[in-house]
């Protein structure tokens, strides 16, 4: 099942955010003006704007998956509407990066700018972790690793219903510490859930340190192959490459798929890259100005 960008484009409403349509941006041969990269840039801008406005952290985690979310929402996911029963499902298992998801939902026009600006405010559906009550969020997450079990059940449901829809889970590498993650991995492989696609944001960092120091994840591809998965090592910041890899997957038969996406924590903002403190810290005015300038674009 391959969905083209054109199939989904009509559902987008960039005007809701007073931003130019990707299609309206002329291609000048510069990678920065490529539609995929522009989508990721928009996500990063929103992540920075909302983090600054709400004065909250988890910025580095959201920036880490900006390109993954751009690949998914910029063309991979087939979602005629968030209420469509046969839409692809997406589980943001690393729920603490919800701001990157909210950015995509806003760019798709499923939430408006007014809603987006309630991020972390009282009475808002847009908390630090995603809630299914918000339009476009399939499952609430926040407790690490539970998302893969949700996604495995969603994939099994699609098979039982004879649907070609796919289920995606975006997970952090730290989630691999949790035993239940491997319970789901075993079930999905045993039942050949080829319609399940997991993207692991391998940024090598977790809350209190680097994964290599906290709980080593050596030989990750071999581990997943040993568990019976179809393993792909990819650049998690190559939007087009991510989309192309996913487009090449056989989601009708075979084994479940995992993309081990090499990423840089805090990607796009030099002083945040690979710095643990940006798991938690909000930005000062000066830091914000620099960050906005580095991701390129208006604030």
């Amino acid at each position, binding site marked *: 099942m391959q969905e083209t960008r054109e199939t989904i484009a009509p559902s987008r409403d960039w005007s809701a955010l007073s931003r130019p349509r990707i299609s309206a941006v002329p291609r000048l041969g510069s990678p920065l003006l490529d539609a995929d990269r522009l989508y990721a840039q928009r996500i990063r801008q929103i992540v920075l704007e909302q983090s600054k406005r709400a004065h909250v952290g988890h910025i580095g985690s959201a920036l880490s998956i900006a390109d993954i979310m751009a690949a998914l929402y910029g063309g991979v996911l087939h979602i005629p509407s968030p209420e469509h029963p046969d839409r692809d*499902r997406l589980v943001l298992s690393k729920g603490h990066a919800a701001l990157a998801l909210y950015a995509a939902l806003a760019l798709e026009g499923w939430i408006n700018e007014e809603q987006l600006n309630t991020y972390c405010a009282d009475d808002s559906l847009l908390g630090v972790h995603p809630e299914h009550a918000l339009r476009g969020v399939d499952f609430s997450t*926040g407790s690490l690793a*539970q998302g893969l*079990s949700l996604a495995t*059940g969603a994939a*099994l*449901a699609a098979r039982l219903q004879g649907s070609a829809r796919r289920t995606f889970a975006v997970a952090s590498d730290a989630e691999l510490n949790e035993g239940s993650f491997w319970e789901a991995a*075993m*079930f999905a492989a045993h039942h050949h859930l080829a319609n399940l696609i997991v993207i692991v944001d391998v940024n090598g960092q977790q809350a209190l340190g680097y994964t290599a120091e906290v709980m080593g994840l050596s030989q990750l591809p071999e581990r997943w192959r040993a568990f019976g998965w179809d393993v792909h090592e990819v650049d998690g910041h190559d939007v087009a490459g991510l989309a192309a890899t996913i487009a090449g997957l056989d989601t009708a038969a075979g084994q479940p798929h995992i993309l081990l996406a090499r990423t840089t924590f805090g990607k796009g903002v030099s002083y945040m890259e690979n710095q643990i403190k940006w798991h938690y810290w909000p930005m000062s005015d000066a830091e914000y100005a620099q960050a906005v300038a580095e991701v390129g674009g208006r604030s």
Partner: protein
Amino acid sequence: MRAAFAQTLTELAGQDPRVLLLTGDLGYMALEPFSDAHPNRFFNAGVAEQNMVGMATGLAEAGFVPFVYSIVNFATLRPYEFIRNGPVLHQLPVRIVGMGGGFEYGSAGPSHHGLEDIGVMRLQPGLTVIAPADHQQARTAIAETWDLPGPVYYRLGKDDKTTVPGLEGRFALGRAQAVREGDDLLIIAMGSVAGEAAAAAELLAEQGIASTVLIVASLNPAPVADLAVAVARFPLTLTVEAHYTTGGLGSLVAEVIAETATGTRLVRCGVAAPSDGRSGSQEYFHRRHGLSRDGLVETARRELRQHA
């Protein structure tokens, strides 16, 4: 209740294609009616209860009504946070089935004794909690609640033979069922140990003490009105449950008494101490914890004397 569950669910699945059954690798010589009749809707999730509950949430979101089955502790305590963040917070129709409440797996040891499931499950708003007293009531309760829009926990027993006299399979959500009327003492019981409570009432009657016996199978929603009316009539109330005295039926009745400012005195018959490692049959543990019919008679007589 085990055979009643398997048979009832098999029938329901025959009528409704949304019904699925997932097991955490348990149910030998119990779940075969379902797996034989509906092999494509039966999944052994392996010894992996957290994932089983998480998957059931994903299945329910797509429109299925998945039942997940294991022994009480493995169905509730092990995947507890998955239950909370999954079916409860998403308000999806996952059904958690815990087999063998209390000491039904007596000789298997404390790892298999289900003594706090009602307490922890009752904590969750929006989770219907049902603990039938016998297999007839289990059948009615499942038939009446399997299609609720939100999640349900069923605490079931293994016994498919004995019944609580006078119950006759009655069940209603948010109601208690009276199986005996008397003016001296109120006994409120939950789960399969209710049979001992009813037998104790019979022995007390032979000794001239007339008891009212209420069965509470609907723990959430709780039969608050029925309980409030009942406790107001009696100076002494005994609760009987194969469960820790904190969190379960005894706590529920205490809440009702406190909130309705009723003057009854409450004695919670249940398990108040952690295991000392000794093993034995269900009957042995009921005797040890004062939950056998003789133990309940002794407690009732002692408390009535103290109160007189």
